[in-house]
């Protein structure tokens, strides 16, 4: 929140009312963003939401139909990509297959005019290869490297020119899940060590949450819905779409009725967090995260807050946590998530009668 406020108007990168239109379709719809120096910012959205188009406009591969892009006080909107102080790490890396690792990393340095002395380039490439721990593989071709190694070459190549802004397009989507989680942290550590401002684009909310200082969530229609720190976006989503996109959630639809949310099919209206404005009769949704819901073998009583009786539908044991789905009648299920060892008693069996419960402050009221 603070970073966003401080960034207004003075941001290191300012995207001002940028739109991109292809024929009749609006791929990016009037987006304004401000990013501070040394920040890692993630643009999160489903595929085809325009996040990559926005990144490509910042890199210079596309020209905005409207709006401005200002980097470090300079208007970049119409500067061609090879004159921008930005570098991109491409999705699936786009390493030059005919060049060695060393030549790939040196490519950007060789383009600098006036030309750098050979020794300077060599020393800089060595330093970059050391940074990503690929010095021993310097003479290999990209096809002789594993996916993780290719990713590191791509990173070294995009850092070689010391860009003011590093752009990462789906940086880890080409990696296996297991390597991906480890690489997320390595990548953040490297970016921090180099101290470069970074914008990444991803459809993977876990990747965005793990890596970014702030996340901007885009709608499928190319608009920016919400910008905030990972925790803020997760705990206080502004819309139902965000609540569902960033993590799992249970949505209860209903109308405000005497300070509570009356949902058709539920025996009693749901209690809401204190201080919620509840204009009588207005439609609204209550979002409750699965890990915010507890499970009880018998009625936990009034003091548990909201409570609904049901039967255990499905159980997914995932080691560190378990996901238990509870059928509450009317074809509706409530998803609950329990850290290992957090279940009060033993894990219930499928079909068993249980109660789900959560205190009112664990829900988030959404009106759009």
């Amino acid at each position, binding site marked *: 929140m603070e970073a966003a406020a401080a960034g207004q108007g003075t941001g290191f990168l300012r995207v001002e009312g940028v739109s991109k239109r292809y024929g009749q379709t609006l791929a990016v719809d009037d987006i304004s963003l401000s990013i501070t120096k040394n920040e890692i910012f993630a643009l999160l959205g489903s595929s085809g939401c325009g996040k990559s188009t926005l990144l490509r406009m910042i*890199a*210079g*591969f596309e020209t905005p139909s409207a709006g401005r892009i200002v980097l470090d006080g300079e208007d970049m909107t119409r500067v*061609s*990509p*090879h*004159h921008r102080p*930005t*570098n*991109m790490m*491409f*999705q*699936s890396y*786009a*390493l*030059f*297959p*005919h060049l060695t690792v060393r030549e790939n990393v040196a*490519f*950007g340095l060789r*383009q*600098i005019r006036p030309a750098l002395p050979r020794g300077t380039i060599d020393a800089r490439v060595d330093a970059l290869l050391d940074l990503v721990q690929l010095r021993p593989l310097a003479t290999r*071709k990209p*096809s002789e490297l594993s996916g993780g190694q290719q990713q590191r070459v791509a990173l070294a*190549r*995009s850092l*070689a*020119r010391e860009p003011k802004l590093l752009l990462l397009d789906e940086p880890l989507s080409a990696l296996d899940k297991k390597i991906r989680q480890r690489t997320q942290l390595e990548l953040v550590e490297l970016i921090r060590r180099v101290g470069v401002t970074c914008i990444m684009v991803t459809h993977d909310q876990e990747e965005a949450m793990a890596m970014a200082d702030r996340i901007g969530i885009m709608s499928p229609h190319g608009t920016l819905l919400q910008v905030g720190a990972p925790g803020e976006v997760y705990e206080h989503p502004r819309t139902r779409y965000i609540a569902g996109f960033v993590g799992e959630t249970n949505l209860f639809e209903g109308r405000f009725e005497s300070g509570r949310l009356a949902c058709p099919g539920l025996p009693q209206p749901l209690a809401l967090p204190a201080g919620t404005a509840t204009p009588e009769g207005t439609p609204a949704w209550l979002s409750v995260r699965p890990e915010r819901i507890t499970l009880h073998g018998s009625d936990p009583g009034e003091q548990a807050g909201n409570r609904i009786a049901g039967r255990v539908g499905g159980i997914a044991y995932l080691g560190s946590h378990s996901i238990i789905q509870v059928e509450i009648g009317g074809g509706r299920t409530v998803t609950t998530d329990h850290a290992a060892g957090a279940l009060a008693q033993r894990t219930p069996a499928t079909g068993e009668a249980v109660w789900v419960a959560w205190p009112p402050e664990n829900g988030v009221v959404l009106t759009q």
Partner: protein
Amino acid sequence: MNALLRLLARGRLWVDALPWGWMLLFFAAPFALIAGVSLSTSELSIPPYIWPLREEGGSWQFLPDLSSYERLWDEVLALLSAGGELEYLGAYGNALLLAALTTLGCLLAGYPFAWRIARAGEQWRNTLLLLVMLPFWTSFLLRVFAWMGLLDSSEVGLVNQLLLGLGLVDEPLQLLYNRGAVLIGMIYSYLPFMVLPLYANLVKLDQRLLEAARDLGASGWTTFVHVTLPLSRRGIVAGSMLVFIPAVGEFVIPDLLGGGGVMLIGRKIWDDFGPNQDWPMAAAVAVVMVAVLVVPIITLYHAQRDEGRRR
């Protein structure tokens, strides 16, 4: 089930056998015949040679006549001692030079074609390729004759008419029956053979590699030289082969547009098989031409394969 498998196995056999059989019937056997003729003795008869493998004195004997090859070898010696007439070697040289220039011309003209088609929208590519191949729908001879009409060196020639009409020249230029006319005709006729393999290669070129080069500060030209060109090398080699090899033996275009002024090896073979009735000589020239072409092709093939392995 077993019967079906056996049938399938036999089907596979056919698929394997057809190309081998084809090559045997239409390449190996004719080539062996030509090689045999090249070792025959010239004779005024029908056919005008005596086969080297023949019955003599009651037994079969192999009696090769190497005089045709000796004539070629003598020219090599003459070349080395810088004296004497180079009737055949000159024709080889002219043909190789013309083929090389044709290949270069096709490459320079064909690369932009292939690039543009490969970068066109997917819905346009097939149409554009069709347009490149469109001239093939008319007779090859007709197209060469059309060039004769265009380049005619009198006031009737279309190009000369245009130049005279625009007042750029006072009298018609000698456009036909020279090396330039031959080269234009060759490049024109062989262009599609260069464009198609180049296109097939360039269309697979990952667009993001070009973006990556631009992103890393390379200008359009640097990107072309350091990324596009090296990555399209296989297409360039394939297209150059398809143009160069048939161009060496090309006979019709130089004859019609060059007026026979420049002696090429194709013309030489034609003369020896035809008017001169020296079949062994013509066959020897053909065999040597295959040898001259095969050596660089095999070298190139090995170089490419090793390159492929290193990747």
